[in-house]
């Protein structure tokens, strides 16, 4: 029950069409850039689902890694087909999240933030330390690309379509979850946990549910990434990447479904265009980050609302 207006449906259709033809106008490494960008869209949207209950985790990047490592090992060591490994990787990530939610959701707020950070860092160090089966710092290489009717998925364009298809499916799913009763309760848990409890909502269950769903989808994202790269290494999923997820979601805004997407797309393209100032790019990022927190606390997504409020004198969004 996608409760979207036909107008926005048309918009989405147009967007998909654009994405569909775009790669033909791009250079090689920009085609790759686009593929990773689409994957990162799934990363941020799944992360936003986790944050719906108001808990900010620092383990999402590692969960992506869990999925990535899972499918790498499944396809390489147990030579499972990519098409089986993809959902399984998601399940592994989700299951790990389920296990972790027992210790982690005994904490909230700052404690949860730090707790999730510590748990993630511990997992990452395990990948580094246990050379069997994780391959240590060098990770696992030679991960096979997907196989389907002789399509060559090493070729960016065909992989682009694969990623587009899978990510769209995931996004629709996530959207429907948020629009369903579950989504409503997740928000309720965020805004007033005690009130929700008082009408029979088991807040712990919904916090971990969000965490599990989010991890499942980011696990899928991880799989998509490493089956294109052919390698998986621990530092792909370090605190560095986690920080970027945070930045994308926060700069984009996490109130609306599209906020995080705005964030990742705009910032990634900015970053790409700052290539010339290579050395100072992180600083530019840092500045953007601070500026948006200071002057645009509810993210890029709030700009259209503000705009409307300013020029069409409709009532500003709460």
């Amino acid at each position, binding site marked *: 029950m996608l409760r979207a207006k036909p107008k926005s449906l048309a918009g989405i259709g147009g967007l998909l069409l654009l994405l569909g033809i775009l790669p033909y106008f791009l250079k090689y490494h920009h085609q790759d850039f686009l593929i990773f960008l689409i994957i990162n869209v799934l990363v941020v949207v799944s992360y936003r689902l986790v944050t719906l209950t108001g808990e900010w985790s620092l383990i999402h990047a590692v969960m992506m890694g869990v999925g990535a490592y899972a499918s790498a090992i499944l396809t390489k060591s147990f030579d499972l087909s990519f098409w089986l490994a993809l959902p399984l990787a998601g399940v592994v990530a989700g299951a790990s999240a389920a296990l972790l939610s027992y210790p982690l959701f005994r904490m909230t707020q700052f404690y949860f933030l730090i707790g999730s950070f510590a748990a993630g860092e511990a997992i990452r160090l395990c990948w580094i330390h246990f050379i069997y089966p994780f391959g240590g710092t060098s990770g696992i290489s030679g991960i096979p690309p997907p196989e389907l009717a002789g399509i060559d998925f090493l070729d960016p364009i065909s992989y682009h379509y694969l990623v587009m298809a899978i990510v769209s499916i995931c996004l629709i799913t996530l959207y*429907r979850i948020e629009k369903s009763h*579950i989504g409503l*309760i997740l*928000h309720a848990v965020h805004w*007033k946990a005690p*009130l929700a409890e*008082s009408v*029979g909502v088991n807040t712990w269950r919904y916090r971990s549910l969000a965490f599990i769903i989010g991890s499942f989808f980011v696990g899928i994202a991880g799989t998509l990434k490493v089956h294109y790269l052919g390698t998986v290494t621990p530092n792909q999923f370090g605190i560095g990447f986690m920080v970027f997820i945070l930045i994308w979601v926060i700069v984009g805004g996490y109130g609306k479904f599209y906020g995080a997407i705005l964030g990742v797309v705009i910032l990634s393209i900015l970053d790409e265009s700052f290539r010339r100032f290579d050395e100072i790019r992180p600083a530019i990022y840092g500045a953007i980050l601070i500026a948006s927190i200071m002057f645009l606390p509810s993210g890029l997504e709030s700009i259209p609302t503000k705009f409307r409020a300013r020029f069409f004198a409709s009532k500003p969004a709460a």
Partner: protein
Amino acid sequence: MALLDVKDVTKQFGGLTALSNVSFKINEGEIRGLIGPNGAGKSTMFKNIAGFYTPTMGDILFKGESIIGKKPSEVARRGVVRTFQETTLFQEFTVYQNVLVGCHLKAQTDIFSALLGLDKEKQRDAHTKTMEVLDFMGLTNRKDQLGSELPLGSQRALAIAIALVSDPVLLCMDEPFAGMNSEETNHMMNLTRKVRESGVTIVLVEHDMKAVMGLCEYITVLNFGTLLSEGTPDEIRHDPRVIEAYLGQGAH
């Protein structure tokens, strides 16, 4: 058999004792007032009943089953639902959504049914129920406003609606009249009666004597964490211990 049976409940925080050996019973269908001067332990008792605190000693039986040590959600599941002091509701949700959350026990679903739309039945029922309650509380015309945009009276009404829609057997109302003018108070009193007529037993913790005396058949008075007195409004009104307790408090 009493609907709610509070047996020798004692609650301590670290050193100090908020409640000591309080016992009382509440019968099906009554409106019970739970009153007392500030710091008498009303709210503490209230939280114990609703599962937000666990008594240090003693027991609380609901329909003959102990409900202590149960999570609030679990207690709610069994039919004991509370409202909050002040106006606790989802400011960011529309009135409709607020009440829909109240429907959780009916509408809750798992991801797969949610995705495959297998829970359509449920959700439709929840919707119908929600609309009923909105109508019942006279909020239908405001259903698309945000919680934060409602006037005080309606916010209280909404708070009750949220509780009511979850089909409580026992509804615990925490100072529903606080800060209301007499007209709002009257409106709220009528609503409360309506709720009771719909078959819900009600406990209300309240300062506003006028409202309590007007609403309740039977009143329980706490003082310094102990049971001071019980009786009909008239008995209470003339009970010297009660008067003394309130005077000692600098009567309001």
